[in-house]
């Protein structure tokens, strides 16, 4: 019922025409600290949130459920038409994931139904420099939110070592990276560099190279045993693969890293391959760290920040995109259901519509 209401109210929201403000008053919204806040109204205008605050005396639309920002998959393979990679060359910085998008991908509908409103599709991280990612909305009128995101790559032994074209060692990988950056650092990685790593040497080597090339510090996509190089990650924003079932050690490492100020952004690539993987990973993170706010941010605000869109996405705040999900309970409650999904102020999914389509 609520979904229908949202749909009706937001029906005029497509096509970029300015629309009248919509003021939603849900039972609660998920606050930044992960707690539920009641009595908060969210005003939506032209696809964005324009105000968040106490409910106005009249004009607000009451909706049942918990309103939360849509989840953002920080590092994913969703929406690709096959594998986006080039294996005959050592470096492929010019590859664009945007060219490998399948607009008809069935994954989008599944992700929407699970509360994921944006995915960062990156090329296969099988080269030291693998190419640029693309930020996609999982529904709505506009699919590509950013046609070209940061340069991505990898210093992971298992991913890049290739006997035919090389490199065959981490030192070789770092050498290749240094040569590429010396040639045209700004062209290659001026918009940022996301590097998959799995040990301390890779992290330190990559940071030293970026410093010498005058680039910002790379964003690390952390694989393997984070406890083995946790000292290098303290205080940083890092991407971690979605892990719904950490070992006792992994959970303890997450807890200690969180305590040392490390912030996580979760990506499904290299982790749980399920459409629901992001949320189950956030639940595991919440259980391990005891910090529901940080765990929820790991699938909303932190991926947005990693993508250079802090405050624009993944939060319920004035100025942010109206990519919102209405849940039947707190989204970190496994028993919660998605009641409706809005992208850019437009209601794009509700359960009844999905049932009709089946």
């Amino acid at each position, binding site marked *: 019922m609520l979904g229908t209401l949202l749909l009706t109210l937001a029906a005029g929201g497509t096509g970029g025409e300015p629309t009248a403000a919509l003021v939603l008053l849900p039972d609660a919204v998920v606050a930044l600290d992960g707690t539920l806040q009641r009595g908060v109204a969210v005003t939506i205008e032209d696809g964005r949130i324009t105000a968040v605050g106490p409910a106005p005396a009249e004009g607000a639309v009451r909706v049942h459920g918990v309103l939360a920002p849509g989840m953002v998959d920080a590092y994913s393979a969703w929406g690709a038409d096959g594998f986006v990679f080039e294996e005959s060359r050592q470096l492929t910085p010019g590859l664009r994931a945007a060219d490998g998008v399948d607009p008809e991908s069935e994954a989008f509908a599944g992700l929407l139904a699970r509360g994921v409103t944006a995915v960062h599709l990156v090329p296969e991280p099988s080269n030291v420099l693998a190419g640029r990612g693309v930020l996609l909305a999982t529904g709505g009128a506009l699919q590509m939110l950013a046609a070209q995101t940061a340069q991505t790559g990898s210093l992971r032994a298992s991913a890049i070592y290739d006997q035919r074209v090389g490199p065959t060692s981490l030192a070789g990988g770092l050498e290749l990276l240094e040569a590429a950056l010396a040639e045209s650092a700004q062209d290659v990685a001026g918009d940022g560099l996301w590097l998959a790593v799995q040990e301390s040497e890779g992290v330190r080597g990559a940071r030293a190279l970026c410093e010498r090339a005058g680039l910002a510090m790379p964003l690390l996509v952390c694989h393997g045993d984070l406890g083995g190089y946790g000292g290098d990650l303290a205080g940083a924003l890092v991407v971690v693969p979605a892990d719904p079932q950490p070992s006792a050690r992994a959970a303890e490492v997450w807890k200690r890293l969180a305590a040392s100020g490390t912030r996580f952004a979760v990506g499904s690539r290299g982790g749980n391959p399920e*459409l629901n993987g992001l949320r189950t990973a956030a*639940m595991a993170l919440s259980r391990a760290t005891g910090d529901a706010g940080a*765990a929820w941010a790991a699938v909303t605000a932190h991926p947005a920040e990693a993508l250079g869109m802090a405050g624009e996405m993944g939060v319920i705040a004035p100025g942010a995109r109206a990519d919102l999900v209405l849940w039947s309970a707190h989204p970190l409650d496994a028993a919660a259901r998605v009641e409706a999904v809005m992208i850019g102020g437009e209601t794009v999914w509700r359960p009844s519509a999905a049932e009709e389509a089946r």
Partner: protein
Amino acid sequence: MLPRDLLAPPLGVLLTLSLLSSAARPQDQDPGYTRTYVIQADAAWVAPGEVVAPAFVQISEGKIDWVSSQDRRVAPRTPFGAGEKPPIVKVEGTLAAGIVDAWSGLGPGELLGERRVRPERRMREALPALYSGEDAGLQAQVLTARNAGIAAVYLATGSSALRSGIGTAAAFAAVDLPYATGREALDCAIGGAVAGGPEASYQAEELSGAFAAARAWRDSLDDYDEQLEKYEKDLEEYAKKLDEFVKKEDRSDKDKPPTRPKRPKKPQADAARDVLLEALDGKLQVRVRAESLADVRAVLAMDGQFDLDLVVVGGLEADLAAEALADARIPVILAPGPDIHADGHGERSFAARWMRLHDAGVEVAIASGGAEGLLLARAGQLVAAGADPNAVWASLTAVPARILGLSAHGGIAPGKDASMILFGGSSPFDASAPFQTHKPK
């Protein structure tokens, strides 16, 4: 000064002692909990659908003494008058029984890493004694399980061999090692669940063939007893005849001595077959890893053929034979695993499969299959998909406890194990709220 030999106990005595202790080890283990105290919580889920609020739970030596909505502490009598009441620990949230994981990945590496699988190997004999540090790897596994809210498990000897051994139910001791309690079971796998080879398709026949052979052997044992009786009679007869023959005075060449009867051959004993006989006698449960409908039907056929206490493990397509399983009273242990079928094929999702089995009246347990962290998330998804929360909770606690014969698990009541969970939200499925596990002191 005494000679050294008198100070040190003789080696033989030591050996005998250690043999005795290892023989006694699997039973009657002391989990090592010592203290008596009371936990006061906002509420307690004492059984699926039954809530006590507020809740006072007295625990001593790892077991629950009593549960009440009032403080019923009594000062113990001592020779010097009344002693002190047990201390009270006040906590926020709701207590619930620890989860019983009827299909875990836990086990001593030594046993699970054995290259040659012997059907007669026993988990109980391979469990480490309860000394801290004895099996650090296993301790780490127990810690992970405990963090996920698990209080008891089934330790399987394997799940991908036709007959991989005899596993056991187990609870956790103070040193975070498992100790055997509850039932033992024969771990079997048939069909697609068996690792390797084209022969996988007729594994089910091989398994029931083995049971049939064991039964036939026992029958032949009865025949042997009969033959032995006859032989003894024949022998007496023979002795008589021989005596007559020897004593005969007018013996001619035509008189032949009587022929000595042949002793019947004793059927050979075989440890692997003895295990099957234990199962046929109802001393061992038979857990069969069966995923496809054909394999589940093979288990149903075995149920008709033999008097076995069968359990289906895995059961990816068990829901397609839900009514037959309910009629045969064969429980099913489902593991959530990666729910790839939920993506685009809702009718084969974990939730849909669980609901079909549950609605048909099958006893369904939800187990981790080694993925402890997913257990509560999956259970919550079941509730989101419309399942009755109490039935889902039973599927994680009371039902698996019953299947594994763990009478001290699955609820909060006097005599039950005090390994519990404490959750802050409306249910243990809410990961936005605090969640703790209570390890007895």
